């Protein structure tokens, strides 16, 4: 996997998507058939079948073939075996088979859905983190949520997403978390301790939430839209939630959804908040992709709807900078609530597990909060940015208005460039796979960066995990597919279809290379079907 500098992103943006699409189509036109034939030949080689058998044995050896326990086996099969253990033998053979081929020469494993942004984060965060060294050394074990200024920064972030001049969230209800993952786990733990009950996850998603619920011995389930096959996204419409079991205490929703970028409109959000109020349940809102909407509203639609319906006390927000600015490895997340009972409980949990979070984050959160507040006012020029900063900053903030303005503009430039890059990559993926008939690219709503979740062009009943596994063995390409995001594999195989996630926050060359390999493999499966070996992969107990 290659990583990208901002300069690369800008260069790609200047090129636009069309040249990449044309290049890929030309490549497929010239060499596609040859690659297809080579893949056919490869399938006849004993090493190919050996690789498939090794993959199955490895899954078994790692306990990833369990059919009885509810687990996230599909996710880990993909991460640890398909994209892990099996790789060396696969690549040796694929290199041999495809030697001399312009696409596959020197083939390395490629992940079409890395799930993380490979665009280098804005440099200013490095500077802000380094600036945080000083306060970090003046430790404060009595600050389980973070320092006062840090929590004010989080409050600024969340209030900015509620609306201009909103003050609904106070610093007391804000907590630094290690990424959104910790926020989700803590929120579930708090729910258990405040009012134990069922957790309902809306739409497909990352395994961490259900796994946390499982470990906390909370009953849980995942709901998928009943209209998912029609292209309206995988999130269930709130009107479909009238039959929630009476023990439901919390719904968890990531908006926009990962992996298919579906979102709720205003009416749906109002229904969701009303439902929470009527049924006395809480909403855990995972806003990790919130800042990546293409039509980026200055506020967060769910929080806005909740505020308008006096329902903010029902919402616990978790988010992070892992996706918005690609700082996944730094674990910079937050949890915010306007409900004091929740704030007390979360505080207690944090006292138990860490005393205080990293204290290096104060300048970063101070800046982030102010930047989002300033952004809400859509300043027209530098003078307005500086003026707004002076109005909004806290008395002890030492950053000059000139410095703030410079950082703010750099951040906005990074965000605009990366957003454009993601959009163009989405266009490339859509145009290429649509033109090649590889997948139905319109089934994924794609309202936000940086994932899309198309349905591969294979008949219903095709084994999803088998498709994923054989794609790797044949082409060195892997990604996350439907069952990796929960719900039984059978549901995906028989009803929702083989869905593969494409994360396009990666290098363009990698993306195009992956798309080409995916197209060729799909052609092979369309004409010859999957090997019988991989059809033994079944993950019907996904959490």
């Amino acid at each position, binding site marked *: 996997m290659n*990583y990208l500098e901002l300069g690369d992103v800008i260069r790609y943006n200047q090129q636009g998507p069309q040249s990449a699409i044309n290049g890929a189509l030309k490549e497929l036109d010239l060499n596609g058939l040859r690659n297809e034939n080579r893949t056919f030949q490869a399938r006849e080689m004993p090493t190919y079948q050996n690789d498939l058998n090794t993959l199955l044995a490895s899954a078994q050896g790692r306990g990833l073939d369990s059919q009885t326990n509810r687990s996230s086996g599909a996710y880990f099969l993909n991460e640890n075996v398909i994209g892990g253990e099996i790789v060396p033998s696969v690549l040796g053979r694929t290199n041999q088979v495809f030697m001399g081929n312009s696409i596959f020469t020197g083939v390395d494993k490629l992940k079409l859905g890395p799930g*993380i942004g*490979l665009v*280098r*984060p804005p*440099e200013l*965060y*490095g*500077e802000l*983190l*380094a600036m945080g*060294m000083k*306060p*970090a*050394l*003046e*430790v404060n*074990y*009595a600050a389980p949520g973070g320092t006062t200024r840090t929590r004010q920064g989080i409050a600024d972030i969340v209030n900015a997403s509620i609306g201009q001049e909103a003050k609904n969230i106070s610093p007391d209800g804000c907590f630094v*978390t*290690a*990424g959104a*993952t*910790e926020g989700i*786990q803590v929120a579930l733990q708090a729910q258990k301790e405040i009012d134990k009950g069922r957790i309902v996850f809306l739409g497909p998603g990352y395994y*961490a939430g259900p*796994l*946390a619920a499982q*470990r906390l011995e909370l009953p849980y389930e995942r709901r998928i839209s009943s209209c998912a096959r029609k292209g309206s996204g995988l999130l269930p419409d709130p009107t479909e939630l009238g039959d929630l079991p009476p023990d439901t205490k919390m719904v968890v929703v990531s908006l926009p959804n990962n992996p298919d970028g579906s979102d709720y409109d205003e009416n749906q959000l109002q229904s969701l908040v009303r439902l929470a109020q009527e049924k006395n349940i809480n909403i855990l809102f995972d806003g990790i992709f919130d800042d990546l909407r293409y039509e980026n509203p200055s506020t967060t639609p769910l929080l806005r709807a909740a505020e308008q319906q006096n329902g903010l006390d029902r919402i616990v927000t978790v988010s992070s900078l892992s996706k918005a600015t*690609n*700082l*996944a*490895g*730094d*674990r910079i997340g937050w949890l915010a609530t306007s409900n004091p009972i929740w704030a007390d409980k979360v505080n*207690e949990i944090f*006292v*138990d*597990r*860490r*005393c*205080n*979070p*990293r*204290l*290096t984050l104060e300048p970063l959160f101070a800046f982030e909060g102010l930047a989002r507040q300033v952004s809400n006012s859509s300043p027209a020029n530098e003078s307005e940015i500086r003026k707004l900063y002076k109005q909004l900053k806290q008395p002890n903030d030492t950053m000059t208005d000139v410095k703030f303005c410079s950082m703010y503009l750099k951040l906005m430039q990074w965000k605009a460039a990366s957003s454009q890059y993601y959009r163009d990559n989405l266009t490339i993926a859509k145009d290429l796979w649509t033109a090649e008939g590889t997948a139905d690219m319109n089934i994924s709503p794609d309202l936000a960066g940086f994932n899309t979740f198309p349905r591969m062009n294979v008949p219903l009943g095709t084994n999803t995990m088998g498709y994923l596994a054989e794609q790797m063995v044949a082409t060195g390409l892997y990604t996350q597919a439907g069952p990796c995001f929960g719900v039984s594999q059978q549901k995906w195989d028989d009803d929702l279809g083989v869905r593969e996630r494409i994360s396009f926050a990666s290098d363009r060359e990698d993306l195009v290379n992956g798309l080409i390999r995916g197209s060729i493999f799909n052609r092979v499966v369309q004409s010859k079907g999957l090997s019988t070996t991989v059809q033994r992969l079944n993950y019907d107990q996904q959490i």
Partner: protein
Amino acid sequence: MLKTYTNEEVRRIKRILLSIPALQNKQTNYWTAVDEVYANEEISQILETSNIDSHSLKLSAGTSVLNTPTQLLASIVTALQNHTYRFYMPSAGSPVARDAIALRESYIAGLRSKLDQNDIVMTTGSTGAISSIFEMVAAEYPQGTVLIAGPTYYLYRFCAQYYKLKYIEVSNVTQVDPKRSSWLCLNEIITSINDGIKLVCIVNPTNPTGEYYSKEQLNEIFTKAKLAGAIVLVDELFGFLDYSSGMPQVSALSVAEKSRTSNNVIIVNGFSKTNNLAGFRIGYLATKNISMIRKLTRINQVRSCFPVGDFIDNMLVLDSQFRISKYAQKKGIPRLRILKLINNQFNNRVPRDFWKQSDDFWKTMENTTEYYESELLRAKEILGELIETSAETKVGFNSLVKIKGLDSVNMFDFSVNCYLATGVKVELGPSYGLGQKVWEANSKYGFWIRLTTARDKRLYTKALLLFKKFIHLYLQKKRFDVTTNLNFI
């Protein structure tokens, strides 16, 4: 003159105190109760109105204001500024970090069977490590009992309560000579270990007293625990602040290896005290028990994916190299061979000016431990005749001393009134467990205060003098301005 309060002010303060929810519940931990008072903004405002500094005067803070060694700090700053790509790590934490720690622990403990990264889990500070271990035990043995060797850090008891585990706190204090006491309690630990005990918690060197359980004593504890099927958690957070060598005198992993109890022993450590990096929350746990490592990694997985990012990798590698090289020097190995050794062990990831950096690092560390030790002597001199006896402290930067004439005093009221009169915040015996009543009613215990001698010299002197003055005043008056008679567990 110390601040005294009028009847009207006293009534107001009492109203504020009684309105604090934690103080309305007798089951509140003493540490929490006092902390709630210190954190109360209304009370703080009352002090500030009387020109009393309500924030800076801490005698028992438990943290150091001394600088982090510049070499380590520089490596973190460089990593942050270079903002290397920030991708997800394995749930156990950065492999580079875990390798570095595995090497450090292996060499310092002189292990025959070296640790590797698979024996280490990175955590959110040592607190995260302790809390994870409790979570693991609670999941496996919800009816189990935890044995806590006291007096110790409040977190052990807090975790037991939080995970609804039964717990027993054991302690003992014995007079070593007319001026020195020991808080080690081997017999109490040994006699309390039975089949119901699933976790034994020992801090070694101890906090707040800064003493060591010897190798032989640990051996006895581990062996008994193994027979009973209990895990022994050994918190070694202060080992590298040893006054005499800057290296821990006793290693639990080494004792465990020799006594064939490695499967029952897990150590907890971090960089908050040793390197004054508390703000970064870098902790870890290490054990040869692979099953425990798996369970604890899974706890990390849901708590945070993984605990800290790779920006600390270089710092941990450097720290490990410094400590291994010192260990090797102590063994008489020539520098050239040491350099070759660490180059091999760290895949040639050794700075060009290694010896300069290492020498500077150790100079800083020596100055640091010397400061902690000399500040303790100075504090004791200032308190002078007030001290009846004190712990045999061998490591920085906490100690426990007993004050004369205050044995029957209500410690909560003392803390509150000392704070109201002087702004000085103190942590007394019950902050470290056992319950307020035990300290006040049992003549063997009495009025002990933790001295944290890692603070700013000027402020610490001021705090000590005010504290001393307050005691003299109390001993004259034999009453407090604000009397609550509250008692906490």
